[in-house]
């Protein structure tokens, strides 16, 4: 595809950039303006700022006082973001950088390009920009975006909706048409460490110290190596007991312990930013992991091209116990069957704790939910785009808690994601479900007949069962 010259941004973009910049600077600020923007320069001076103008598109260090703000305009946005961030960070290490970006990777731009109704939008995508920020050592301090409008292509509305939704599931950035950004320096993100498994264990202060200790003890006896364990805890929670456990179990030499502190709403996101592993698992104190659980899941990923792998697990049900320790009443395996069905992803939200993700195979897929920081719907969102490897057989970990019906604690998906599958795979799943339903009906019928044969001497039970059997037979008739 040939890139076309930058389209003219929406007509009010310069005014919005001006308003945005003025909202971020105070009188007396030293502002370096990169690119031609006379009205903005005048507005800044009127605001009481010391303005240094540069023609762009490259950033050059101005004489005199180090700038407190750098504003990128016009071609300077793409130029600096794609190749000049490292120099900017080095030469203006305390400066907040402000710019407007028209997202070259918006769903609208992509669809219009695919359909041939518009040229390729020039410049950098928001997703590409985010990646560059991470590599160069910047984070977004503030962001104001305009979402893309729908219904503007030559496609039927539902088809366009599906395509847009799939793009959004892979990258939230595709829903951004344009945005205003304030970025500030931070430590550059480290590259993922090949082969390393990062296990993020979220500490819920409501969970008992004994539960957390058991979860850590089980993790200390994992066979998977190398393994880093990130204990993620809210900033104000008491971690003294947990840290003592971590220090003690680390002496087995089976994992590298780390503690991540962050506000409760940002806990997973903070831990994920610090996790260095190619492979990622997410736990909480309810989980007990058997020794080969992660080794088998990682092997499954290494032996396939799948983006994630999930294992059969136990839902361990505690009885209300008079004893000091919880009494296990039952362990119920889930999911059942030899295939992982789409329904399992919504039926068993606990699957989020029994999976391993290969982060090199999911692109920009958002691991935490949009705007909530949670991970409750992660299996559904992951499964909608990526077909997992399912390890059936014997359950290899547990999710513990008081008795509850399957799916009783279900956190349903925050959205209703679209499913990316071949039609043949979908058809096969439907056929299998039908066959299993027929088998189950046949089994019920035989069971009822068998019981009936034994109880024929009790007339009213006999009649009731006879009627039930007849109903089942009728039900079985195609």
């Amino acid at each position, binding site marked *: 595809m040939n890139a076309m010259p930058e389209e003219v941004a929406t007509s009010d973009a310069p005014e919005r950039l001006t308003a945005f910049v003025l909202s971020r600077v105070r009188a007396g600020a030293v502002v370096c303006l990169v690119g031609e923007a006379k009205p903005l320069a005048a507005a800044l001076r009127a605001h009481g700022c010391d303005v240094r103008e540069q023609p762009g598109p490259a950033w050059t260090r101005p004489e005199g006082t180090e700038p407190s703000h750098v504003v990128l305009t016009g071609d300077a946005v793409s130029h600096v973001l794609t190749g000049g961030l490292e120099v900017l960070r080095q030469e203006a290490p305390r400066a907040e950088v402000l710019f407007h970006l028209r997202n070259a990777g918006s769903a609208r731009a992509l669809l219009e390009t695919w359909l041939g109704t518009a040229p390729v939008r020039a410049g950098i995508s928001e997703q590409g920009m985010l990646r560059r920020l991470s590599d160069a050592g910047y984070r977004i301090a503030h962001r104001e975006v305009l979402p893309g409008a729908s219904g503007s292509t030559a496609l039927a509305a539902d088809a366009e909706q599906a395509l847009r939704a799939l793009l959004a599931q892979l990258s939230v950035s595709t829903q951004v048409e344009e945005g205003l950004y304030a970025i500030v320096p931070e430590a550059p993100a480290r590259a993922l460490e090949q082969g390393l498994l990062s296990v993020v264990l979220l500490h819920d202060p409501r969970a008992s110290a004994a539960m957390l200790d058991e979860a850590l003890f089980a993790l200390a006896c994992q066979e998977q190596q190398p393994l880093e364990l990130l204990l993620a805890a809210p900033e104000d929670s008491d971690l003294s007991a947990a840290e003592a456990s971590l220090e003690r179990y680390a002496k087995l030499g089976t994992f590298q312990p780390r503690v991540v502190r962050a506000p409760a709403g940002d806990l997973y996101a903070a831990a994920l930013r610090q996790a260095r592993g190619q492979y990622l698992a997410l736990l909480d104190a309810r989980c007990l992991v058997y020794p080969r659980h992660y080794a088998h899941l990682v092997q499954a990923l290494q032996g396939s091209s799948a983006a994630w792998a999930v294992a059969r697990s136990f839902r361990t049900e505690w009885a209300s116990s008079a004893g000091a320790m919880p009494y296990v009443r039952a*362990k119920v395996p889930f999911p059942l069957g030899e295939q992982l069905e789409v329904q399992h992803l919504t039926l068993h939200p606990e699957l989020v704790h029994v999976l391993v993700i290969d982060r090199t195979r999911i692109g920009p897929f958002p691991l935490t939910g949009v705007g909530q920081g949670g991970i409750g719907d992660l299996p559904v969102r992951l499964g909608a785009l990526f077909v997992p490897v399912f390890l059936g057989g014997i359950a290899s970990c547990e999710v513990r808690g008081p008795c509850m019906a399957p799916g009783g604690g279900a956190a349903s998906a925050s959205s209703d994601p679209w499913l990316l599958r071949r039609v043949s795979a979908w058809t096969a799943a439907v056929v299998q479900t039908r066959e299993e339903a027929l088998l189950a009906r046949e089994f019920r019928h035989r069971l009822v007949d068998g019981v009936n044969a034994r109880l024929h001497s009790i007339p009213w039970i006999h009649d009731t069962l006879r009627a039930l059997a007849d109903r089942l037979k009728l039900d079985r008739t195609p």
Partner: protein
Amino acid sequence: MSGRDAAGRGEPGIWLGIVLYRNPTQELERLWTSLQWNRDAVGAPGFRVTWLDNSPDDSLRTVVTRLDARADYRYSGQNLGFGGAHNRLMAEAFGTPGVRHYICVNPDGVLHPYCVRELVHAADRMPDTGLVEARLFPDEHPKPYDPVTGETPWCSGCVLLVTRKLHARAGGFDERFFMYCEDVDLSWRARALGLSVRVAPAARVHHYTVTREESPLRERMVRRSAALLGAKYGNATFMRDRLREYSALGGEPFAVPEVVNPGWRLSRIAEFGHHLEFARRRW
């Protein structure tokens, strides 16, 4: 070592016996680390550790003494079997004044930091204690136990506390069981004597064998021991069924044990209705 015995002789009241057989170095390192946790735990009793090596040679001496320069390591010179080796250590332990409990410790386990403390606490809680087992972790054994008292049909020998009282009245393991089922037999004999056999849920040992590689030798040994258990407790059908499985697994013929009448006290306790589980399962 802390927590000397009441007699003040400087001898801990608790002995841990570890029977070795060609164990990997890493396994012993992990076990030793976990024993250190147990020594350091708040409120933990002092304990003495004795290693008895059933291996064909004494090469593990180097490993054990590297872990603990003052280790009490003994080389048996022959494979005495699980029960036989523990019996020798137990006899010595209870021959020492002030020793209250002997704890069998499997070398392939990792003891939770409070394992020894909680075992001893559970044992001392009731006067009629015969045996107390640690709860297998993370996948606990599905046999039932009373959530309040911890009473259970039988105790696993993985990490098993034996009281002086039990040893005095029942002796140790029946050495005809070379390996496997000797713990079930000892549990049944303890119960027949009116001693309690319990789980200490707070005493945990990391020991997971569900997915370990299948070993025909191990499977044959389990069947052979189970057949002996059937014979000892007068269940000829159970014995024959296990011998059939033993033979199907390629086991060499051996002198079939004589089926005996164990008497009513043992008969009412023995439970052969659950194949090799010897108790109903909770799941």
